[in-house]
């Protein structure tokens, strides 16, 4: 019988939640790494028991944890993230030049073919790769050393490389996104990168149409259609049909197009989910109502999904890595909130229920579909 395993990172530890295909009864295990921030956990698609967790704390820096038994036990791995070659600078908040320095891992993206290969997106914005199961890390410096990188400046959340997407068809093609810098594409397995920002427009920038500086919050892809990407930008929900060569806006009838998460239905490549957030000054959902919005047309036409979600007095946020979909026959959709709730819909968003209500603030949600 198929089942699902949900990996939840929070500000005070990690939780592993499992259920069968009905997704009604849940076993919740944790907290793992109690008291630590867990920005992200992710699993190898070729070895589902191989998990990676990014554990960090301001006092103690970064710890990388690995599990080889589906999250029952964990082993600290290598945490030396050394920038390659001459360390360049980026702009600091006062416009001074600030050397790139490693702060934490925001996102792990395991290889599609090798359980020992995993990519790490880090702050300050850089991409690292391990080919020995996270024992050692080597930077792929091409993204940090490109021409525009000295002009990047952190947003309030930090200069973080938070999104890594591996193209399942073109094996050497990767996508990455960096807050307050933009979206980038590599055609040579991460050696060199170019910005893919044509069509993005950001009023918060001096030149709203500049090549870099756009605050990309999240990008999602359906594996069957890797040329189509969906983006939740700081403001604006965007889509490209040519792997980022040109983007167009699909915000349509959303109540607000600010937000962090975006994801795609596992069986319907044109069904997209977002959770609108009121604004960048009020980081909570509009009108006290927690609403997921779904488009079945690849954008522009959105419907509010509210059944089972609080529709009054709710003022949570949903952070960029805190939404995921499973691949069961009836697609499951999951998200976690800064209020500590993790919600599941076993019917592609039509109805929702809380798996847990009172976790620490949720940073990330990832789901595995297990046979």
């Amino acid at each position, binding site marked *: 019988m198929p089942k699902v395993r949900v990996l939840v990172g929070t500000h005070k530890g990690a939780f592993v939640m499992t259920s069968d295909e009905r997704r009604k009864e849940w076993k919740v295990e944790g907290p793992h790494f109690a008291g630590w921030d867990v920005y992200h956990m992710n699993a190898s698609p070729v070895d589902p028991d191989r998990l990676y967790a990014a554990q960090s704390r301001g006092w*103690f*820096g970064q710890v990388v944890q690995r599990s080889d038994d589906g999250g029952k036990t964990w082993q600290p791995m290598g945490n030396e993230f050394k920038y390659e070659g001459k360390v360049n600078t980026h702009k600091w908040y006062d416009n001074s030049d600030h050397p790139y320095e490693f702060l934490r891992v925001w996102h792990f993206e395991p290889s599609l073919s090798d359980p020992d290969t995993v990519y790490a997106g880090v702050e300050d914005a850089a991409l690292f790769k391990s080919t020995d199961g996270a024992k050692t890390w080597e930077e792929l410096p091409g993204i940090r050393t490109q021409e525009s990188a000295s002009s990047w400046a952190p947003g309030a959340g930090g200069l973080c490389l938070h999104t890594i997407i591996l193209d399942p068809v073109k094996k050497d093609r990767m996508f990455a996104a960096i807050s307050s810098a933009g979206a980038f594409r590599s055609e040579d397995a991460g050696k060199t990168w170019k910005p893919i920002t044509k069509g993005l427009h950001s009023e918060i920038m001096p030149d709203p149409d500049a090549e870099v500086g756009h605050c990309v919050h999240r990008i999602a892809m359906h594996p069957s259609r890797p040329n189509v990407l969906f983006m939740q930008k700081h403001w604006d929900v965007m889509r490209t049909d040519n792997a980022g060569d040109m983007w167009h806006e699909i915000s349509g009838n959303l109540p607000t197009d600010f937000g962090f998460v975006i994801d795609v239905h596992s069986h319907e490549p044109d069904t997209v989910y977002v959770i609108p957030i009121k604004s960048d000054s009020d980081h909570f959902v509009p009108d006290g109502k927690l609403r997921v919005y779904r488009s079945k047309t690849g954008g522009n036409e959105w419907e509010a999904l509210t059944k089972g979600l609080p529709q009054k007095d709710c003022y949570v946020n949903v952070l960029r890595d805190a939404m995921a979909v499973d691949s069961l026959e009836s697609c499951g959709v999951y998200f976690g909130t800064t209020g500590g709730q993790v919600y599941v819909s076993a019917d592609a968003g039509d109805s929702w229920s809380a798996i847990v209500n009172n976790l620490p603030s949720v940073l990330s949600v990832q789901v595995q579909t297990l046979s």
Partner: protein
Amino acid sequence: MIRVVLPANLRTLAGVGREVELRVDGNVTQRSVLDALEAEYPMLRGTVRDSVTKKRRPLLRFYACEEDHSEDSLDDPLPAEVASGREPYLIVGAIAGG
């Protein structure tokens, strides 16, 4: 044996109690104690000193014999009471409250 007191989060990470005992050959300095700590408990590498720069993490302090040694050279000898094991070397995390 050198006694080292760890902050709570690092005790959990290393799977140890409040205090660990370490053998240090040669001069007992902060560097030699921290090197011995990381050799005995490799999961602590990078958590007390930055993995790359080897500098003390800014929210940690190093105390011994009721003195703050955080700004001392890592190669200065620690007090004889620490070297003899009568007093512990303390790695202390900055308090966080509200």
